């Protein structure tokens, strides 16, 4: 019996495909998410919109809270640690979370190094804005990637930018000659073997979700049609007028992302979406996506 193999780590993300992973801050939220059909939850003390509003240093959540959430649902539970904070990751592994998100939504603990994720039994998901960043994270041991978007804004524009960037770059390398791949790998700061492997497969070698700014069923379906494997929804559900209805609608929209009639049906009568902040009005210093190296 062999545990924590690359196949088993990446495979868990493959089981989440076509699904919605929802941020939750209480066991009650977690049950609402599970009832709505979430394929996993992200256990947090505050959703990104509140982290943004509160300011200060954002850290790993209280392990006691994460454990309460783990006990309240049967679906997988993920939790976030700070970029580079491998001790927070050790603690999350010790309590048995199913996936760790080394996340730019929390305040980075290291401005040069990400966690060496190969040292862990628990798999990691990491954010990226482009292919180079994605492949650097995979080289460090990430078993799943998510495009960053701009968390806590309810504005999907950055999620679209990052997904288009990653998927567009994969399309480009797919038609490159080997000598071009070598120079491209250098240009984007990614290991050549991962660039070659990705070019040959014509897709990311791990599962790739979208995140950061998804607030409506249409946003979720947009990301799916752009070519991601699934969607994280952070503040978009529990900062909206009717979380249970919106959560269900987003789950249905991710399954039927190519069916505009069903998308119209599920988008009806959901009440207020989260208020949102336009990313173009966000000062550079308040952007979370630039965190990570």
């Amino acid at each position, binding site marked *: 019996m*062999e*545990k924590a193999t690359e*196949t088993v780590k990446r495979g868990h993300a493959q089981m989440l495909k*076509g699904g919605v992973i929802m941020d939750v801050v209480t066991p009650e939220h977690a049950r609402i998410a599970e009832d709505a*059909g979430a394929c996993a939850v992200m256990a947090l003390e505050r959703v990104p919109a509140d982290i943004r509003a509160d300011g200060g240093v954002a850290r790993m959540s209280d392990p006691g809270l994460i454990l309460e959430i*783990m006990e309240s649902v049967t*679906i997988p539970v993920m939790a976030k640690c700070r970029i580079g904070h491998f001790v927070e990751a050790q603690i999350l592994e010790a309590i*048995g979370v*199913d996936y760790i998100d080394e996340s730019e939504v929390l305040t980075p603990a290291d401005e040069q190094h990400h966690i060496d994720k190969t040292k862990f*039994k628990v798999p990691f998901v990491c954010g990226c804005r482009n292919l180079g960043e994605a492949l650097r994270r995979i080289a460090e041991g990430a078993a799943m990637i998510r495009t960053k978007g701009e968390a806590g804004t309810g504005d999907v524009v950055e999620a679209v930018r990052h997904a288009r960037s990653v998927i567009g770059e994969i399309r480009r390398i797919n038609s490159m000659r080997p000598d071009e791949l070598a120079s491209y790998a250098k240009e984007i700061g990614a290991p050549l073997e991962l660039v070659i492997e990705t070019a040959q497969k014509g897709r990311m070698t791990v599962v790739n979700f979208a995140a950061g700014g998804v607030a409506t069923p249409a946003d979720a379906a947009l990301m799916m049609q752009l070519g991601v494997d699934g969607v994280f929804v952070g503040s978009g559900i529990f900062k909206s007028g009717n979380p249970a209805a919106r959560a269900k609608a987003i789950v249905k929209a991710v399954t039927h992302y190519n069916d505009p009639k069903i998308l119209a049906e599920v988008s009806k009568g959901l009440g207020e979406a989260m208020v949102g902040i336009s990313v173009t009005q966000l000062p550079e210093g308040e952007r979370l996506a630039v965190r990570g190296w």
Partner: protein
Amino acid sequence: MKIGVLALQGDFEEHCVCLKRLGVEAFEIRLPSQLQELDGLIIPGGESTTIGKLATDFDLVDPIRNFARSSPVWGTCGGLVFMARDVGTDQPTLGLIDMVVERNAFGRQVESFEEDLQITGLPGGSFRGIFIRAPRVKQVGSGVRIICKLKDGSIVAVRQGKFLATSFHPELTDDDRVHHYFLDIVSQEN
């Protein structure tokens, strides 16, 4: 041969890739009308609660049961859970196979594992089983044949007539023998 893969959530794409590699037409199934003209159905791995809720909301439960009266169905992991008669929770299931299933029976993700398996009726020696937050079959009715157990006695693959269910994920390997095994069942039924 036309095989449908239930595409509500989970690793349906991986099953489609295996089927295409074997030269079989694969169709993603999200609505009841898409079940027509299929020779067999695969229910992939994924979150069984999510798959069950979406199947209920889009009125797929009875149409799949009707389809299964005359056609083979295979479930992997979450698909095995969805095919069970009893899973010990109130989540919707198809009740196709007379078995009681325990979800997440081996623990959380850090306990997920790979293991070489001996599967009754599968030629070519051992098969690499990938178990991810996997379920196990706790009890089976008299019409159910156990075709694979782990060393500790856990039941991880069963066959009931034209129905097949596995706790593990052949679609995550390059070894197509279990897909072949299912396609043989489909050929015999048609």
